[in-house]
């Protein structure tokens, strides 16, 4: 992992107009993405993971806008791009996205082949014949057996996992710098999930692109990510290397999230669940957004928003617990010695 930044987000804020009311989906997010890394963004539904990555390709819904901050990519502030025409130079070409539902990501009435060559002809200026050769090579690379024959098939003739492979092939077709994976394995079964994750990992090394991986599945994160950013109520509340976030988490929300891993549950006991619901983003959130659901909340959490505290060079968390005046709090029982537990789990499951 290099230290060269490929994306710098500074105080990004995204607002949506919903039935004449303003909703702040992203609140003051600053994040750096380094070249060649796999950065996982985790959080519950509605925490703003997808919205945050949509700002990178100008794919926010029509009622949304970037209302503040800067997003720097290749010396250009993406938050200032206004016209769709300018986005066409970035979208697909530089930053590609693959979505959750592989069964609907492909046009059902067009041949697999033409959906790949379309991109090759557009972004890489290939002729029809060249594009076909390249498309077949890509299909083979993502593991479609008998690619030459299957080039002419329609999406309904492919299985779910194979369709996601095709989607990856299409995203690869333009040789992007950044690949955004928006929960790409959620709709797949576990064995296929693992294969797709391995494929994405392999390809990112081979083609030297950066991966932004959105998921709410912490198991997936542990498998694939170099770094993890945890989002809650439109903010990044903790980020660090994969090991730091898993084994040395500092934010109570991250603790709660890790405790909710079903793998850590004991037979016969109820699984851990976070009580309550996230705050409404229609109103201004006072203090720490997680405080009302946090049994360990301090009084100050309800009054003042915590700053980002530095834990190490790479590890930051947004909680008053890291303030030197805060009382000492212990991690929940469930995630103490998480690394040993995970090792044991892996041993049990006989996974490498």
């Amino acid at each position, binding site marked *: 992992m290099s230290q060269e930044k490929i994306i710098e987000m500074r105080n990004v804020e995204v607002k949506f107009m919903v039935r004449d009311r303003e909703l702040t989906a992203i609140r003051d997010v600053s994040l750096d993405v380094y070249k060649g890394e796999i950065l996982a963004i985790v959080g519950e539904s509605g925490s703003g993971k997808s919205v945050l990555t949509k700002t990178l390709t100008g794919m926010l819904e029509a009622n949304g806008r970037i209302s503040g901050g800067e997003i720097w990519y290749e010396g250009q502030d993406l938050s200032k791009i206004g016209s769709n025409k300018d986005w066409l130079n*970035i979208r697909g070409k530089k930053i590609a996205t693959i979505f959750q539902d592989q069964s609907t990501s492909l046009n059902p009435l067009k041949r697999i082949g033409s959906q790949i060559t379309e991109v090759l002809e557009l972004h890489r200026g290939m002729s029809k014949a060249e594009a076909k050769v390249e498309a077949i090579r890509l299909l083979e690379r993502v593991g479609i057996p008998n690619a030459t024959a299957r080039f002419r098939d329609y999406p309904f003739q492919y299985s779910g996992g194979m369709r996601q492979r095709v989607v990856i092939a299409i*995203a690869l077709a333009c040789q992007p710098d950044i690949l955004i994976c928006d929960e790409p394995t959620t709709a797949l079964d576990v064995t296929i999930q693992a294969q797709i994750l391995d494929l994405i990992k392999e390809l990112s090394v081979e083609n030297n692109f950066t991966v932004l991986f959105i998921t709410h599945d912490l198991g997936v994160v542990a498998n694939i990510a170099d770094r993890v950013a945890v989002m809650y109520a439109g903010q990044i509340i903790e980020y660090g290397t994969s090991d730091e976030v898993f084994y040395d988490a500092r934010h109570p929300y991250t603790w709660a999230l890790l405790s909710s891993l079903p793998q850590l549950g004991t037979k016969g006991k109820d699984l851990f669940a976070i009580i309550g619901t996230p705050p409404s983003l229609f109103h201004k959130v006072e203090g720490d957004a997680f405080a009302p659901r946090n049994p360990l909340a301090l009084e100050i959490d309800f009054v003042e928003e915590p700053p980002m505290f530095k834990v190490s060079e790479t590890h930051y968390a947004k909680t008053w617990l890291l303030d030197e005046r805060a009382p000492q709090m212990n991690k929940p029982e469930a995630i103490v010695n998480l690394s040993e537990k995970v090792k044991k789990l892996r041993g049990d499951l006989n996974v490498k």
Partner: protein
Amino acid sequence: MDELAQKKVKNKNPILNFLIRFFKPIYNFFRKPLVKYIFIRTFDACITLFLIVTAVFLLLRMVPKERFIDWDRFQKVPAERKEQFKIDQLEKYGLNDPIHEQLFNYYNDLNPFVEKELCVKDKFDEDYNVVCTKYESVRFNLGKSLRYKNGAKVTDLIAERFPVSFKLSMLSLVVTYALAVPLGVYMAKNKGGLIDKLGNGFIVFTNAVPSLIFYYVWLIVGMKVFNFPSIFEPEDFRSWIIPVWALSFVSIAGTAMWVRRYMVDEINSDYVKFARSKGLSESAIMFKHVFRNAVVPLIRTIPSALIFAVVGSYFVEMLWNIPGSGGLLVQALTKVDNPLVQGLTIIYAAMSMVASLLGDLVTVFFDPRISLTKNK
């Protein structure tokens, strides 16, 4: 293995061998999914048609049989001969026969493989008996009208009336699609915009107001504003314009509504989102992906629209005095012209079956997901 197979064939009876070789390609041809499908559908359609013919025939036999007699002539017969005339007529048309014999005769009339003698011209002799003066041999006999032109053949009536209606409706279909498709596409593309709002208003308005009112409005506009003739004249180009436009006007809204709806469905689908993330321009997405897919459910309706063009529009043809087929069935029903009712019903039923078959075949052609073979 090959040797064994060859031996097996050689050992067979030469005649049998020849027959197998002769019928094998035919057998294989009928095993092709598309051929098999068309074959089965046609066969089904024939059965349906047979049932319709039977049902219509039996229903019309519930009408008192006196209504089948030649009413115009009946008026001319002197009073003392009237009773005899009635009896003669019933006898002549076989209306006194048992019902199953009448039905069988009707099937026979419809059978195109058998030639039948049909009286096409008749007159009264001095005793007021109807005598036939001219016979014609016909294959497909739908009978003779009781009301039109002294007993014109139903088939002749159809051949005379359908072309005008067909021309009129085809022109209006072309105008409708030419205007409704771009309108629907534009509305879907700029959903929520000014044109979309106006278009939606137009759709609701034309759906809510009965078409007849629009026809009158256009009739008046045509006469007062453009000075077009208000009576239809096939040779006069100007007299076509307003009827065609009036017909199109009321169907533009409906067609545009469906185009818009299918387009919006596609625009909101995930593959469009993915196509956008691939970096495709909006116009490429619209025409290469969205429109191509939205057109599939639309195309299905085109064969039936084309086929039913011959039926014409009752109101439009009535208002402009167009000698088309629009009012034919309605008039036949009100005037109890039973042979004509029977004939038209059969023709319309056959048309709708052909239309639905063609619609399905067109969909098969445009939608690769539809497979004609059973389990996959």
